[in-house]
């Protein structure tokens, strides 16, 4: 029996322990780092996260309620209803995001050939299938739109003056008309299932994959403590490099001593 006690806190032991502790974090750092280096090739900035847990974690919730209008269109001579919604700078055709909005919405109607959406000083034309046709500034004819309506299957605009303008069938020109027999677009309150569907569509464009990978890399996905955790991982990586070097050099030294001993004390 010897009196030698095992060395409990050697560099090698700590190298192993810290290595095991930091393993997952270093893998995360490395993988996310490689991904971020190839953001464009991997389309990280164009891919949106649809996972409900992650979206909730990021608090992707619209601040306001959507403004919706129900429009009637025709398909094979049959009336078909669609819902046009504006929600936090996005325009939706049913639950499909169509385009971004810089102005407030003042109505949407289905007229001959088009769906017309009126903003402050612009109109947006959509096809009956929800395809984006054109965004037109109306300031050449009028501005400060208050309401959108319909007369003889054509869109009618009420301005703040108030003046009333009716478009031609191709919606290129506007003529002043009197305020008679105009059917004004009325806001539509979404049913619960319609709201939920729209919420899914809204959130679908709310969080880019690049953001998640970036936050995973920095640790911010877990809040302030996550950043410290990733700092710890980086420090651990530094420690591993240095302790690895130390272990390697001390082993090398020992091996040299051993070889020297064997050479000179063979007998």
């Amino acid at each position, binding site marked *: 029996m010897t009196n030698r006690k095992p060395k409990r806190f050697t560099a090698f032991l700590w190298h192993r322990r810290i290595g095991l502790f930091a393993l997952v974090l270093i893998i995360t750092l490395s993988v996310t780092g490689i991904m971020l280096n190839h953001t464009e090739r991997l389309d990280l900035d164009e891919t949106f996260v649809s996972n409900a847990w992650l979206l909730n974690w990021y608090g992707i919730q619209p601040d306001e309620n959507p403004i919706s209008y129900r429009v009637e269109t025709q398909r094979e001579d049959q009336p078909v209803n669609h819902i046009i919604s504006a929600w936090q700078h996005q325009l939706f055709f049913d639950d499909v995001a169509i385009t971004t909005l810089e102005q407030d919405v003042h109505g949407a109607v289905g007229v001959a050939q088009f769906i017309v959406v009126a903003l402050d000083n612009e109109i947006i034309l959509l096809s009956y299938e929800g395809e984006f046709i054109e965004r*037109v500034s109306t*300031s050449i004819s009028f501005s400060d739109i208050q309401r959108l309506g319909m007369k003889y299957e054509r869109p009618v605009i009420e301005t703040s003056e108030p003046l009333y303008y009716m478009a031609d069938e191709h919606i290129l020109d506007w003529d002043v008309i009197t305020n008679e027999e105009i059917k004004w677009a009325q806001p539509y309150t979404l049913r619960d299932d319609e709201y939920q569907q729209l919420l899914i569509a809204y959130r679908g464009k709310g969080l880019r994959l690049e953001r998640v990978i970036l936050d995973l890399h920095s640790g911010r996905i877990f809040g302030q403590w996550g950043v410290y955790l990733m700092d710890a991982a980086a420090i651990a990586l530094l420690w591993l490099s240095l302790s690895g070097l130390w272990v390697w050099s001390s082993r090398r030294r020992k091996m040299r001593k051993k070889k020297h001993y064997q050479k000179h004390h063979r007998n």
Partner: protein
Amino acid sequence: MKRYLYIIFAILSLNSFAAQAGGVYLQPDEFINQVFDNAPPKARVLWLKKELKKQIADILDHKYKGLRIRYWQRGDGDNRKSAWILEETGKKEPITTGIVIKDNQIELIKVLVFRESRGWEVRHDFFTDQFKQAKLKKDHRLSQTIDNISGATLSVRAVKKLARIALLLDQTIQNETDK
């Protein structure tokens, strides 16, 4: 010490100036009015057929959003002049540009609305004047070299693309008229 404070102040002022340099320089309707001496013709539309859409997408390097483009035109033959209001994203925000084509060449190009925080230098005449008399080559590139502006590469690229598209659209309406 005071000297350093002045330098810091100057840098900060320059930065805030750069951030505010974007905006609406000219409303699109004012541009049309100016081009046609305050008596603009009625707007017309060009519906984008499949082949034209593909050509535009090739120039833009992405799909064009929209099925028709509005334009204003006056005169015929050699006196025909068309004006276009087109938009393309520089880095993140669209740059609205007004372009006038006469005799298959760019007569005027103006940046009307610039929404990005960088690259607004493209609004200046020293840049837009380079486009004057530019034509569209068979490979849909400009006949003239347009010098880049350092720090505004993406905006320069966007305006060049819009110039090529305007020439292509003008060529299309001319071909349709000739048929």
